[in-house]
Structure formats: C-alpha cells, structure tokens
C-alpha cells in the first residue's frame, strides 16, 4: 500500500514509517501542511495518516480541503492524549478513523489495514461467510454447518463487525468503539467476556476455531486455511 504520513514530530514519524515499511508498505513522510495537501491531491494513496496538530495548517483544515476537492482517500488522524473533542471534530471534518497518541504500533497497523480495504468492501452485502459460518444481515440469522445459532443482539453485532473485517485484526479498542460505541477504556474485561460468550456459541460446539486471538493485538475471524 502507498501511505502518506503527515507528522511533524520526527521521532514519531520515523517510528511509524519504519514499522509500516517493515510490513511491506510504501510510506511518504511530509512534515509540512501545505505540501501535504498538494501531495494528497496529486498522488494516489491508499491511506493518509494525519497528525491533528501540524505547523502551517491544522490537520482538520487539511481533511476539509482535500475532501472538498473530492479526494475520497481514507484518512486516519492522530490526536493528542485526552483530546475529548478532537475525535468528534476530526470525524465531522471527514476523517475516517482516529487514534490517540501514544499508541501501540499494532493498534495503528490494525486500523490502517482496516481502513485501506474499506473502499473494496461491498456495503450492500447482506450475507457474510467465513468457513462454514454464515450470517445474514437482513434476517439476522446465524448458521454454522447448517445449524441455526441463537445470538443476543450485542453478540450478533460483535460477530458482524468481526466478519466484515475477516482476515484483518480488530483490536480491543476498535471493537469497543465499533460494537459498543465506548470511547473510553473500561476497567473490566468487557471485550474478553463478550468474545468468550460468542465463542461458546459459535466455535466451541464445532471443534474448529474461527475466532482467533492475536496475542498483544486483538481478534480476527478466518477459517485458517
């Protein structure tokens, strides 16, 4: 993937760029806001990673500028610690996802991967399938190997988010945001508890695991083949 990284802090930029390049991505790093707008408009990037606070131009202004010029590339913006309103403002301005500094690299990678495949995801898809597990988004029916599985609404939502991102890792924070709309870190094992309930219904009786834990990163759904 071609990734545009807009970050004025040289240390953070080097850390992010090196990590992404090790994952096989190409990273263009720009520290100046004005140059970044030009690059975003002329080059064809898969994802833009953007610091909310940049010299010369505010990160929000950059998103607004490139969005108003019709550039649809997914934008992940980085916000400062504790910026309660930054997330809402960034999403309002046209950002697609956000990440609070300081972050674990696995968190950044998971979000970049999830963002990059966004445009290809078929929004109107009504059936999702992983191995012999199938969910119907319209009738809200879940089946595995022909058996109908009865899920609570919240469990269904969790499985749906995992299946929509099949093959990609979803971190604990991403799940909290997308399934529960929690934008804070709960002190109890909300995600783990719900995942284990879901597994008990979806995986356990069938002998083969489809929901996998990626240690230190998060969860993913794939059929292992």
């Amino acid at each position, binding site marked *: 993937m071609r990734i545009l990284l807009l970050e004025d802090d040289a240390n953070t930029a080097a850390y992010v760029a090196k990590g992404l390049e090790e994952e096989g991505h190409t990273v263009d790093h720009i520290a100046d806001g004005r140059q970044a707008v030009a690059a975003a408009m002329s080059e064809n990037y898969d994802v833009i990673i953007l610091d909310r606070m940049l010299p010369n131009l505010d990160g929000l202004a950059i998103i607004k500028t490139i969005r108003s010029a019709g550039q649809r590339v997914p934008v992940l913006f980085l916000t400062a610690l504790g910026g309660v309103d930054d997330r809402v403002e960034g999403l309002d301005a046209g950002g697609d996802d956000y990440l609070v500094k300081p972050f674990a690299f696995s968190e950044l990678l998971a979000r970049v991967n999830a963002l990059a495949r966004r445009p290809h995801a078929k929004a109107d898809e009504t059936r999702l399938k992983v191995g012999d597990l199938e969910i119907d988004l319209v009738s809200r029916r879940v089946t595995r190997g022909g058996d109908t599985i009865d899920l609570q609404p919240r469990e269904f939502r969790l499985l749906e988010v995992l299946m929509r991102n099949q093959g990609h890792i979803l971190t604990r924070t991403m799940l909290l945001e997308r399934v529960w709309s929690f934008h804070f870190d709960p002190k*109890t094992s909300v995600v783990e508890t719900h995942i284990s309930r879901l597994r008990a219904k979806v995986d356990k009786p069938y002998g083969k695991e489809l929901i996998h834990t990626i240690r230190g990163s998060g969860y993913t759904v794939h059929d292992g083949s």
Partner: protein
Amino acid sequence: MTVRDLLKRTPFRLAATFSLFFLTTVLALFTVVYLGASARLVSDIRDRVEATLDSLAVLDGDKTFDDLVTVVAGESESVRDPDFIIELVDKNGNFLAGNVRGVRQSDHWMTLKRADILPTMDRGEPDDEFLAIWRPLSKGRLLVGSDNSEVKQMKLFLLKVLGYGLLATSAALVLCAIYLARQTQHRIDAFANPLARASQGHTTARVPISGLQDDIDQVALQVNRMLGNLQRLIENVNQSSSDIAHDLKKPVGRLRQRLDDARRKAGNVEEFKGAIDAALLDIDSITETFDALLRITQIEAGARKARFVTVDLKILLAEVQDVYDIVAEDAGDQLSFTAALSGPAHVRGDPELLVQLFANLVENSIRHCPAGTEISLALSAKDDAYVIEVADTGPGIPEPERDNVFRRLYRLERARSTAGSGLGLSLVAAIVELHGAKITLQDNAPGLLAKVKFPLS
C-alpha cells in the same frame, strides 16, 4: 499625600463633589434671601414716603394750598435732625417750603446722598442716602424722601448673618466630608491590604467584614468567596500536582525495576520479550492516568456542552446493563436494571459521557465487591428530577471517606491492592457536574448506593 493623590481617591472625590454641590445650593439660597429681604425693605420705605405724600396731598387745592405751604414749613422747622426730607416748589420750580432746597426734578424714585442735599447737617453720615420722589400738585410739586440708612444697616446685618451661616455650614460640611471620606477610605484600604497579600500568594488572606451588611460588605463577601474558591483551587492544583508526582513515581519506579531486572537476569529472548511486554503495560497504565486527568480537565472546562443532545436515560441505562450483565455474571455477581417510569426519561446531555458515567459506577461495583454481590441499576422520577441509583451489596465506603473518593487520585486504603488510577470517581463527578446533576454516596446497608439526580429539563 499630595493633592493629586487625594484626587485619585474615590471617597474624597465624592465628598468634595457633594460638598461643592451643597455649598452652591446654600449660596444660591442665601442670595435669594438677601435679595428678597432687601427689596422688601426698600418697598417698605417707598410705601412710607407715598403715605406721607398722600396725607399732605389732601391739602392740595386752590383754597388749601397755602395751608400746605404752612404745614410743610412747620414740618421742616420741627425736625432738626431729619430722617426725612421735604420740599415744596411752585409751578416754576421756586422754593416755597421744606428742609432741603433745589432737589433736581425727576419723575422717578431718586437715591440722594445726604451730603449733597443737607450739607449743613452735623449729624448722620455723609454717605447716608435718602429715597425720594416728586409728586406733581395742582399749583406746584412736592418732594418727600426717607432716610435709607436702615436699609443699608439691615443689608449689612443680613450679609453678616448669612455669611456666618455660610461659614458654619461650610465648616460642618467639610468636617462631615472628611469624616465620611476617611471612613470609606479606611474600608477601601482594608480591602487593598488582604488583596495585595493574596496576590503575593497568601491564599488565606480575607477582606474584613464590617457587619453593617451594606454594599461594601456585599462586595467584601463576594471577594472573600472568590478568595475562598481561589484557595481551594490552588490547594486542589497543589494537591493534584503532588498526587500526580507521587502516583507516577510508583509505577515509574516499578517500571525501572522491571527493566533493570530484565537487563541483569533475563537469559533469553523470550524472557526479554516478557519483560518488555510487562514494561509496556506499566507505561500504558501511566498513560491512562494522564489521559484520565486530561479528560477530567477538559470535561470540567465545559466545552462539551455545545454537543449536548436529547438522551433517553432509560435506553442508555438498558444498554449499560446489556453490556455489563455478563461481565458481572463472570465475576459471580448479578446486575439488574429496573425503570420505575413508563415513558422515556429525556435529559440534555452527551451520550458518550453519560455511558461512561454509569459504566464507571457499575464497574466500580464489579471490581471492588466480592463475588456474589447484587448490583442494581434503578431509574425513577422524583421531585422534578430523574434519579438513577447504582447500588451494590459489597463493602461500601465508610462515611467519612465518601466525599474524599471524588478527589483526584484519591484511593481508599483497601483499594490500593486493586488496579486503578483513583480517577474513576473524579471523572464521574466531572461528568455529573457538566450535566448540572448531583451525585451522592450513601450507605446501602450493606454496600454502597450511588444516587445521581438529573434535574428535569
């Protein structure tokens, strides 16, 4: 103190302005009295002159004119030291009788100097004046004039009386003004000193209250309230800063120990990785403390109010219960939700923060209570407020600690073994405050009852 300094003092300026205004009024009043009294005296004299003329004019006529001459001559003779003058002339202006001669003819009232018309008189002041007027008669003209000196004396007397009065009034006024100005100045000065001390960092300085309950006392009360708030804020900041330093020293120390241990003892890559993972967790928990502190500060700043929407507490609490019932179940607890109202419970608020508020309370119950605890969420409407009760049957919080737990980084002694930043309830308090709600902690006998009251909007 120079005059310029004095002019800069409000009480002095007020007193001076007031005095000036009052003196001007008194002066105007005195002028009116003086002029009125003078005019009255003059008109009295004129009346007297006219009356004399009238009585003599009775003798005017062909037959009696000679009598008139005789009477006038008699009058002139009898009075050796006249306080009035009289002169009778014929049609041609020739002297017929009188105690003065050759007074100039005029149709109007005249003021005549005694020295001019009675040069021979040895008594009276030469500057004394007569008020006189000619009256035309059938066969001549008659002049009568009256001594004006009593008017002059009266005027002098009036001037004296009024002058002394003015002087006395002015003196009293100046004294009164000085007294008032000093009194007020004292009370204002009493402000300056404590305020100067406060600005130097003596947060305990307070402005004195006179007890008069007047406007200055009102201001003093407000100033003291402000100083009190300031003191609390500063103490808060100081306390927070030292708490933060203290709270961070421990995990940073632990982190250092861990890395040091790994550096010295770890024998293989796996052991290093384990040490690094543990170190990362330590750092995350430090970051989390900072994050929570910053969030609290931002929430307290109130900017989020701009994003308030209508929230149905009933739905919101049902969601919280939905998220946490299996978490509670896994911890061996029970979580229930009951709503004692049929319709929705609409309030204006930030749904994200409200979820966090109740999630924090429920999580506190789950984390700090032993297995087998019953946790209940209850929503009801009472006395113009929606009341949300989060109750558990756990160990509760001892009464004297119930206010402390809202303080930043404060942790109960027995909670020190549990992971946590000591900021959860501070965040709860900040969210509650932002929404204009109130939170109280009570004894659930046994356990803790957290009661959040939202005023009905």
